[in-house]
């Protein structure tokens, strides 16, 4: 340090030599962060811009206003995808919440082999959706999966053909998604259950509350902030679900299990409708913001309340 100051004053250019000396650290700090931030902002603007142009095979300049948006919104593909998202999103989030909470409460009963059981419910999260989607597509395929097994066992009138049933196929995605992600809800709920103040539980027990009543009245109400976090994370997954559907049903039968992310991919890379594909991507972002902005506002209020309290 003193050396630097000495040479700097000798040369009479302290500022410049300091900057040169510290150049590597400026580069290491700023280049990655700037690249990351710049790509997020510029790519978002870029996609939004393309969504207002008449681009088809390649991006072109020009302005078509909201025409891409109205075209996407009017297409059967998007309408089915949006309806599916509403059904899949609500069913998956609700059921994985219930399953995760149930698993957490069960594991919280001081049972043996808790660690092993927890690992079993969480391992699907370590595997890619492509793998799990493929495996579930085999199990749920009536010709080779569960239905075939039950037939071979003698119950020949058994039917479990949701995978090829237009009205029920979306539920196969719900099943696979619950299997894959309930462990996540379980892990968060279990952490929440473990952090409940032991004195509150003891007080409830002294007041004569049984275990079920203690859970319902005393413990579960403390879990609602975690519940909101789980809902938001799972919704985020549902809105951008792609791999799982691609491997499990590929949007079929027909377009019965189409979801927004598949519509985007289809428009951009299979139909070469870049403008419409970009518009569909922006619509996905808007759906996501409809979930995330209230959540961010809620988090902000919570934090402010915590500071004032």
């Amino acid at each position: 340090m003193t050396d630097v100051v000495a040479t700097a004053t000798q040369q009479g250019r302290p500022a410049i030599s300091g900057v040169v000396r510290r150049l590597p650290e400026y580069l290491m700090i700023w280049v990655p962060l700037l690249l990351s931030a710049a790509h997020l902002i510029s790519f978002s603007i870029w996609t939004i811009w393309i969504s207002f142009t008449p681009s088809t095979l390649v991006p072109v300049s020009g302005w078509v206003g909201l025409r891409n948006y109205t075209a996407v919104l009017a297409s059967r593909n998007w309408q089915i995808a949006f309806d599916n998202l509403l059904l899949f999103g609500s069913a998956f989030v609700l059921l994985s919440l219930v399953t995760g909470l149930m698993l957490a409460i069960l594991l919280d009963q001081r049972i043996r082999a808790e660690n092993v059981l927890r690992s079993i419910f969480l391992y699907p999260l370590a595997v890619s959706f492509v793998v799990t989607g493929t495996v579930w597509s085999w199990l749920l395929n009536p010709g080779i999966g569960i239905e075939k097994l039950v037939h071979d066992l003698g119950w020949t009138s058994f039917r479990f053909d949701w995978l090829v049933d237009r009205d029920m196929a979306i539920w196969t995605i719900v099943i696979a998604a619950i299997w894959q992600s309930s462990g996540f809800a379980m892990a968060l709920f279990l952490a929440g259950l473990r952090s409940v103040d032991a004195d509150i539980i003891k007080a409830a027990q002294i007041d004569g509350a049984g275990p079920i009543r203690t859970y319902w009245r005393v413990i579960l109400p403390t879990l609602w902030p975690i519940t909101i976090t789980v809902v938001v994370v799972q919704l985020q997954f549902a809105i951008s679900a792609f791999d799982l559907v691609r491997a499990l049903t590929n949007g079929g039968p027909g377009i019965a299990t189409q979801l927004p992310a598949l519509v985007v991919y289809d428009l951009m890379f299979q139909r070469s409708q870049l403008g419409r594909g970009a518009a569909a991507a922006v619509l996905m972002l808007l759906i996501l913001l409809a979930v995330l902005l209230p959540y961010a506002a809620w988090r902000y209020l919570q934090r402010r309340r915590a500071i004032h309290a």
Partner: protein
Amino acid sequence: MRDRALAPSRILIYFVVSLMAAAWLAPLVVVVLNSLRTNEEIAQASMIGWPKHWAWSNYAAAWSGFCVAETCAGIRPYMLNSALVTIPATIFSTLLGAIAGYAVSLWRFRGDSWIYGIVTLGLFLPQQMRLLPWTIVLRDIGLINTLTGLVLIHTIQGLSFTTLFCRNYYVAIPHELIRAARIDGAGFFRIFWRIILPLSSPILIVTVIWQFTHIWNEFLYGVTFTTGQQQPVTAALIALSAAIADIPKHGVQSAAVIIAALPTLLIYLFGGRYFVRGLTAGAVK
């Protein structure tokens, strides 16, 4: 203690938990068993069953034998592709994230909270919003359909996660430590190497496991930016099931699925604790 273990409610709890655990394990067990049955055996019965003859050859065929789109080299080249993308991208994004996290939490500089806020928005921005720009950028810099292109994407995008993880960990390090080191004349890098890095192993393990799992399992970018021989294994699995849809070879396919899932499953098996920590850290943000 003993009469509590015998209480009917305890038995019910164990019964329900075992049932759920069995349901969660069933898909894995089914695929492992299938990977050891011959294609003919599966075709005659169903996907669910005990092997009559142990068909270990499925693994050899899956690894280096079967054909995807006129190339008969099995899953090996695609596994190699995935490794060549995942390992460098994990190392780069973790190291850069650690430095960035250290810079925004302990070194502090003008504009740090702004840029950190923008970078963490990357956790929420859907991939679909970046698909077209990445396609154009990769084509312009000549990296479309290359593994280097995927490494670049995963490094830059991974920074959102790695910076967040490391920053949240480093915030807990007392500032006095850094201030004292600075008074002693230590610079940015010396403090990082001598003080920060030795304290970092827990968070670096979490970050490496998280990044490795996510990049290995990633599908959308792999299938969009690469074709044929350049694809990572997730994209190749989809191509495989499409390619042999007419004459399914479920034994070999099951073996391929197991091989593709093995790296992340093994990491989960040995580093599960850290995996879960990353999972909850990512959620709470």
